């Protein structure tokens, strides 16, 4: 089990990763915060022997994806406005806001894969393992997500 110091250090390092995965899955800041809280608590009480920080990150993403899935089983009161949240974000340029809106419009199955591939830098085989789906499906969804995003941004021009 992690000591409080070890946990705090890892939590500080990866809590935004957990939040970003949850945000990409749930599209709701309050829910993503709740999931982040639950996942970090699971990390704290976990008996897992982590071999490396990469292992911790991998574990956290797996647990977050499951937590999000369970979270969606209780679809009440998710009234928080994504637009309101977007307004609070400090985007460098207006184009960033356009892309954020387009990304959040994508189906979850594309959005998560785009995130893991482009932001976290996982290979498609690793994403397949994380999501427990075939590698071919990951590649297809990655291509379709990218295409759909391009199409949406083009239409917005």
């Amino acid at each position: 089990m992690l000591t409080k110091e070890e946990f705090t250090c890892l939590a500080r390092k990866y809590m935004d990763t957990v939040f970003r995965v949850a945000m990409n899955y749930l599209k709701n800041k309050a829910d993503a915060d709740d999931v982040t809280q639950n996942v970090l608590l699971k990390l704290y009480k976990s008996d897992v022997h982590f071999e490396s920080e990469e292992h911790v990150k991998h574990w956290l993403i797996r647990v977050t994806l499951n937590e999000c899935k369970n979270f969606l089983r209780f679809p009440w009161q998710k009234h928080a406005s994504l637009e309101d949240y977007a307004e609070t974000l400090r985007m460098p340029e207006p184009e960033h806001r356009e892309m954020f809106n387009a990304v959040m419009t994508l189906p979850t199955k594309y959005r998560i894969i785009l995130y893991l591939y482009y932001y976290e830098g996982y290979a498609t085989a690793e994403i397949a393992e994380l999501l427990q789906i075939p590698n071919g499906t990951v590649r297809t969804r990655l291509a379709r997500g990218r295409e759909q995003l391009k199409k949406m941004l083009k239409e917005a021009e």
Partner: protein
Amino acid sequence: MSRKEFDEKCYKEIMDCLHASDDVLEEVLKMAEQKNMNTENGEMRDDKQRIRNQNEYGKNNDGKNNDSKNSHSKNSHGRHWHPARVAAAAVVLCAVAGTMFSTEISTYAEEAIHFIEAKLSPASENDVETFADAALGDKSISTDHAERTNSSGEVLDDPDSQRVAVDSVTANELLVGNVQNVDASVDVGGYTFNFEQLLVDKNGNGMLSYTISNPNGVQDWYESGYGEITFNGYLNPDGGLAGPLLHSESGAFLEERTLLRSDISTDTELHLVTCFAGNLQENESILVELEVGKDDENGESGQLIVQDQKLVTFDVTDKLECVTLTDENGAAAEVSPIGLVYADTTADKNIEDVPESITLKYTDGTEYVIDGEDAYNTVVSLKDSGKSWYVFNRLVDTGKIQSLDIKGHYFNFTDESQENYDRTYTIAE
């Protein structure tokens, strides 16, 4: 930026902007410390329960919320509760333990809590019909989804819900002797609660029908989807209804949802059904806490300034029987006409059970999808202390159950493996 191609740099810069709220880690540490204290005291409670309670009453004991003053934090079921309510409820429960049925006691807030014992009597056949129509068959209880929209304004594809009319003969066959007429009228802060009927099964699933009226209008509530309404009067600067809070005599919080019967409700009188589930022990009373209050001045301390508070006790003795079903490994599930409870099939704390669909199959070949990817036909769902509860949104004829199918997967935290399961429970021999 060229919009013709996927701009990876722009995408990364967007994701860089997303951050968890500052207080998330602080709250986790508080919860973890609480867990350690409980363990040291030999009081190991289920973590889900702790997470649920912690979230249910606000993430922050100091009342600070992540988003804004008026954005109260939510539990994993998406509920909104005032942060101070857990403290108030704890005080009430301590008081209950020591002073059950006294008429007036003092609380930490130096407010008086009035205890009222609801009188219960078995409902007649006509009354059973009335109850079944209200709690289980009223199609005016909305099945609309809590409307969630994406940034383009498109409504998200949440699962569908469907309410089913109740057959009065079947309702009487299944429920007579267990539905209780309630004689209790309670005034709280200018509102009058008239309790009508109550039904509880042996596993702690239940339904309570009542009205709330106020000649000046029932204020401070909003529809939160799937027919549910939520009271948020504590956000009103002058105070208002904070909503009923249910718990058992021994202190277990009961998860609840309050449904609005829209056809017969008016601006001055709401007809409601509160469905609930939780660890209600045999012979335990149900306590319903009613309060009117307001947030403190700046909403930062998390204190609820209680203006009026009543505690109504329901001593239910005739609880609805359940049918027991078992799977091939002997794991049990119990189904009553109003709800389901099943035990976790793994005691390994490193393995998480992630159910994906729960379906009751009837002997005539029809089925009731309680919870699935495309259907959401439960009113309350709760996972706590190694058990899962589901309160139905329709009457289930337990005499016609063929099987219960639960599909999902186990996720192993240790080796991150995932194992799908498909369990079928049948009537125990």
